[in-house]
């Protein structure tokens, strides 16, 4: 386990910024209640076995005596580095992203299952959408009852979405909670 170095930190923050925008500040400075002390500590990012974790500092302190081979997970895993060296956010970061998301999309009940199978979000399945979405923005996908289902990249801006035909892709799927069942091994 080691802290992220400069390049890694910038890459990770960029990815998160796409989804949360200025709320990134919130994420980094969130007071954390984990750890046995009663005063809140802070969160930090750590890298372990090419996975990036968002952990409270007190947890980090106490996990230092666990050997590198045996440490499996700390706090919340938010993403991993591939062999090629690029960073991807995984579904396990959903809770963090959903709480701070700037761009949101709500799905109709009928198309929830389709998204959970890994398909993209089509115009016909769109219930609500926040304004001012630019193509290439990170979007968090919710169900109509505000349950976070996953996230993806916006394919069209909000204005264009209104003009789309019902089969047009609105959000390109990146991760969804169905992966907990489908891709358990790859998490």
């Amino acid at each position, binding site marked *: 386990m080691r802290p992220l170095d400069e390049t890694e930190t910038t890459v990770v923050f960029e990815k998160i910024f796409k989804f949360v925008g200025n709320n990134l500040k919130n994420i980094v400075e969130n007071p954390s209640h984990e750890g046995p*002390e009663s005063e809140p500590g802070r969160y930090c990012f750590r890298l372990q076995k090419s996975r990036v974790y968002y952990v409270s500092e007190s947890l980090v302190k106490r996990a230092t005596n666990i050997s590198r081979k045996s440490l499996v997970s700390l*706090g919340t*895993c938010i993403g991993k580095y591939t062999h090629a060296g690029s960073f991807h956010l995984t579904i396990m970061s959903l809770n963090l992203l959903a709480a701070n998301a700037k761009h949101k999309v709500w799905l109709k009940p009928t198309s929830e299952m389709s998204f959970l199978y890994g398909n993209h979000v089509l115009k016909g399945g769109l219930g609500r959408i926040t304004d001012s979405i630019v193509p290439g923005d990170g979007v968090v996908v919710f169900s109509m009852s505000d349950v976070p289902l996953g996230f993806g990249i916006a394919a069209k801006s909000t204005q264009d979405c209104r003009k789309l035909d019902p089969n047009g892709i609105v959000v390109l799927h990146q991760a969804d909670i169905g992966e907990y069942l489908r891709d358990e091994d790859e998490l």
Partner: protein
Amino acid sequence: MPALTRNKKKGAKLQTETPPLNRRTKSNTAPAKSHKPPLKKQRKGISYEKPEVVSNDDEEEEEEVSEQSDEELGSDFSSEEEEDTEPLADDFLGGSDDEEEEGTLGSSDSDSDGSDLEKESKAIDGEREREERDAKDELQMNIKEQPDEFRLPTKKELEEEASGPPDLPALQTRIKEIVRILSNFKDLRPEGVKRKEFVEQLKADLASYYGYNEFLIGTLVEMFPPVELMELIEAFEKKRPTSIRTNTLKTRRRDLADVLLNRGVNLDPLSKWSKVGLVVYDSQVPIGATPEYLAGFYMLQSASSFLPVMALAPRENERVVDMAAAPGGKTTYVASLMKNTGIIYANEMKVPRLKSLTANLHRMGVTNTVVCNYDGRELPKVFGQNSVDRVLLDAPCSGTGVISKDESVKTSKSANDIKKFADLQKQLILAAIDLVDAESKTGGYIVYSTCSIMIPENEAVIDYALKKRDVKLVPCGLDFGQAGFTRFREHRFHPTLEKTRRFYPHVHNMDGFFVAKLKKMSNETKASEGDEPVETKEQAQLSSDDDDDDEPKQDTKVDKNKGRIPISKPNNKGNKNKNTNVEGPRKQKKKRSQWKAEIAQAREDKRKVMRKNTKEPGRK
């Protein structure tokens, strides 16, 4: 074999064979008066002039009369009186009898109705009485014969049985018989047969009927009386109801229940003792794949797995270790009780199971957990001794309590397996005790649980821990559930073992489970300080003062320990054992604390003297 013939006759309704038994059995049986329209024509010959006869034993007489009518269709059709309905099948059979005996009567009927009818009625009465008598005798015979008839099969019969495929119904009746006899052995035992033989036969039958191996069925027979044993085994054959646990980090039980009901799941709150459990009766959607499940609102977990966590009762901002955490049901429950504060170390030895553990933790939104991959016995070296507040040890076990989930346990566990598990569990529990800090302000508890009902894995392990470490049993906080065994066959356990809890499928409708809660009294191994972790410094001083006074005498140390114990809680037996084991290191440790106490005492004395000195010169 009267019983068999009865069945045969019912089956062979349309045969016209007439052994004399036929009539008897028919009179005894009270068949539903089935109406068979085609045969009604034949019945027309029966007259209404025999109301008495008809009312008493309708079937019989109508049978007999109708048989006559069968014989002489011509005369019968002349008298067109209808009759009450009756089972025509019986008619045929009864009729054949009547044919033989009353053929002459029948023929005379056609000539003159009056006198012949009277004769007929008398004959019928007589017949009826005879039949009733015979029937009663038969019944009596049957009742008497059954208990007498039952005897253990001889070796020859056993060999015959063994050679062919098992005759399941016969086995089942034999099992029921033996259980009945064993449950009231004094009264029902046949002459000259020992109880042991019955028990052996029962074991063999149960093993072949339900598919257990000899070892397992033998242990179960030793643990339970026969009637309860049958209930237990039957309960193992069926599955326990599916239950789920609400994730209080994300939702409330009421809201979750509403959402799931909308999806078409039929559920109810689990029971009074749980505020987060729900039991699922049936569901239109797969309960393990709803969007709510994937979003982490609930966890599929059996009811018995709630218990060790409820016994552990972790508080916020504590350090907790879960030594065998996968797949993470209990760990996530602990985290939700702690509201994501404090820190949980979730340890799992087997690598393939780590993935499901991490996935579940992330799915349920748990952020205060560190997952590591060690053998549980190494944990005290990794985390340091006396470093955490609570430990949950859901030990790997033989799984004999969850046979309803996994039938292979019936045949795969042997005495050797149980012994290996017991050894592993003993090592793990000692490691767990070493991890806990007895001086923790809010904790100092270890919860040990298994999903097994075997005594060597449960009570024996706790007893071992009581002897080897300074811990004592405390009530689990689960008021339902049976108390653990304090003695079993030749074993004698510590009396406080009645505070442990056992759960059975046939009593509580959950998987077989065992839970025990230990409190660590002091951080010394094999010591018998008996200090409570929450003791103040004063009390510690007092105790060490006591030691101070009685330092030279070893025997009185024991007494002093006993004397101190009322302040803390008693653990006399354990103390005695530990005292005799090790004197040296304890002495040294005591000396250190004694020195401190001595110094403090000396200071106090000086102060007193100073005060006296200042007072004497008459200041105040």
